[in-house]
């Protein structure tokens, strides 16, 4: 069926002889790629093996002993990193391609076992004592270093998660540990600060051209965390009218992200801004109308939702038209 299409295009002169030969060569040899399948198997194998070993050690910890386990984990980590240092391509501030398929997975295994090692050490022997900030700070620095040095996006995500952990621990070290009794407002401010730091990192990444492809990850986490934290702040003290102040930074941030995303032509971020913005707007309209009219507001409210959603659809279609020339994500 497809061959007929190629033949027709060729006979009409839209395909040159050269291109037509290339295409028919491809259809003659017709290689079947099993890349995805084998990669999944590799990943599955790592998961099964580490899970099985974990349970095995857990069940036999009395006979093995903590030191032996620690030594084993350290051995895995060190040998993984030794391999990566040996095989790595020269360092660059731009995107570096990994030397082979296994490389990324081995680096990942090394990093996970390093974090596990530090965690185990602290849990069993309290090496850092009660200084939890220090215990999370060191692995975080190491993870950021590894992510930049070997250029690994997955480890960058891990580093961002451990940055959150470190900030959460060092803001309220004691209250956080006493399950559930922490001061909510403080947590919200920490979230906002964390999100803004990530957005700032994203800006720096872009501005000084340091591993530019990391920007997406920073931006992705930063936008979600900041928007959700600001909304949480807005809803936290809903009774007081002053909490509407939370929406001011929300709007400012939305405008910044919208223009940044337009410049970058990234539809994912435009969509995020629009949806978060729509949610904030809807809750604000609900509040105002409810405040004035109580339950009579419901018809007007539903019509407002419909009208605003239709408006957003036209907006999306319009933005799409303007950016269409080469929209990627």
């Amino acid at each position, binding site marked *: 069926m497809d061959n007929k299409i190629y033949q027709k295009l060729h006979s009409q002169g839209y395909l040159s002889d050269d291109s037509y030969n290339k295409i028919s060569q491809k259809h003659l040899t017709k290689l079947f790629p099993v890349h995805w399948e084998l990669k999944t198997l590799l990943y599955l194998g790592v998961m099964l093996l580490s899970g099985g070993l974990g349970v095995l050690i857990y069940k036999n910890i009395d006979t093995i002993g903590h030191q032996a386990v620690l030594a084993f984990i350290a051995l895995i980590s060190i040998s993984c990193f030794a391999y990566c240092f040996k095989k790595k391509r020269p360092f660059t501030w731009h995107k570096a391609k990994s030397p082979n398929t296994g490389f990324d997975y081995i680096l990942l295994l090394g990093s996970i076992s390093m974090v596990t090692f530090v965690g185990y050490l602290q849990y069993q022997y309290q090496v850092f004592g009660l200084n939890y900030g220090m215990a999370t700070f060191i692995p975080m620095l190491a993870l950021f270093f590894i992510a930049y040095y070997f250029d690994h996006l997955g480890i960058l995500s891990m580093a961002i998660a451990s940055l959150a952990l470190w900030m959460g621990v060092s803001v309220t070290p004691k209250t956080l540990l006493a399950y559930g009794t922490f001061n909510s407002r403080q947590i919200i401010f920490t979230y906002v600060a964390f999100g803004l730091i990530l957005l700032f990192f994203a800006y720096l990444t872009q501005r000084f051209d340091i591993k530019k492809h990391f920007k997406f990850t920073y931006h992705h986490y930063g936008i979600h965390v900041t928007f959700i934290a600001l909304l949480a702040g807005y809803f936290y003290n809903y009774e007081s009218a002053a909490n509407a102040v939370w929406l001011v930074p929300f709007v400012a941030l939305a405008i910044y992200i919208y223009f940044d995303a337009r410049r970058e032509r990234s539809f994912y971020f435009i969509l995020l801004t629009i*949806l978060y913005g729509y949610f904030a707007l809807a809750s604000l309209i609900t509040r105002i109308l409810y405040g004035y009219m109580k339950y009579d507001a419901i018809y007007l409210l539903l019509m407002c939702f419909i009208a605003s959603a239709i408006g957003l659809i036209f907006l999306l279609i319009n933005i799409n038209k303007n950016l269409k020339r080469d929209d990627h994500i």
Partner: protein
Amino acid sequence: MIIYNKEWLNNKHIVDLLKTDYTAARITKDEFIKIKTIHPVGFYTPGLMVRIGLFILTLIIAIVATSLLVLMAFVSVHIMGSPGWPLFLGIIYYVLLEFLTKSKHYFHSGVDNALLYSSAALLGGGFIWIVIDSHFTTGDNLLGAITIAILCIYLTLRFADVVTAAVACGAIFACVYFFWALIGKFGLATMPFVMMIAAACAYFGFNRFGKNAKSLYYIDCIGIVKLISLLTLYAAGNYFVVNRLNNMLNALDDSHTAIPFGFIFWVWTIALPVIYILFGLKRKDTMLLRTGMVLVAAAIATFRVYYHLLPIEIMLTLAGIIILAGSYVIISYLKTPRHGFTYTEPEEINSADSLNLEGLAIGQATSHLPPVGQGHAARFGGGSGGGGGSSDSF
């Protein structure tokens, strides 16, 4: 039957086909542009992100508009108490869908998907309501399944949508099941075999139809139907499924693990995934191969429900070692392509890759690592904290 402009559909197929050749650098840019200009495609299908946005927004509008109409009709309760009400709303959405698709040339743009699913859900719900209201003593399940099947087949033929195709396929299998169950004791006893025959017929029939030039517009729908048929074919003979269904129908508790002709079902449970994989490799069929790989896991899980040969941790470790060693050997064997197989990455540019999904997934998975400090209380929560609740309230 199909609502879309057939010439554009043909052109779209040609352009999509040539696009893969262009990204693999088999044709030049000039050639691709020239071919694209003489094969115009007038459909409105924006990028994935825009489609998701349009889908969500349209769904919100549909839900809010429905509740507005419900509120307005609330005054006269007798309208809402009858199945005519969802049918009426469903028809409104359907008319809107037809109108928008024709006038704006939407082609799976998000807006039309959302309208299609809303109207299908309302119409299907209305018909089921009618069936329930008529209080048949037997065969009401069958009648419900038949109505859903007819509705979804019609919508699939008209809009070539994957989701309605999947529902239609499921509904047809349900029809076969309920029809055969009407026969009584004999019907229930032979149910697995009937379902196997039905699924096999569906797979081979659609496999053949997929090679026909007439099926061009429905390629994705045929793909999903084939996948569901393969899964049904396996489930119909899976020992666990047959055992539990048997217990349920005969009102036995789950301590009964023996079933008549148990041997046949064990062979089926273990051998069918292997057969899928072998045929997938022989025919170079990605769907068969991947389904087989997933079903191997299902077969192992089924086996473990009934027999405990090894403790779980030793089995996991052994399986991990075997899989790792096996895939390493195959990868190094396929470094240079052999027997028509290759380990090099497929040349089609995958849009998921540009989203860094892998990196995000690793971040998601590893954020649950044992936290440093005393237990889980020290975790910061990775963004699902206070805001999660507030966004649910919408």
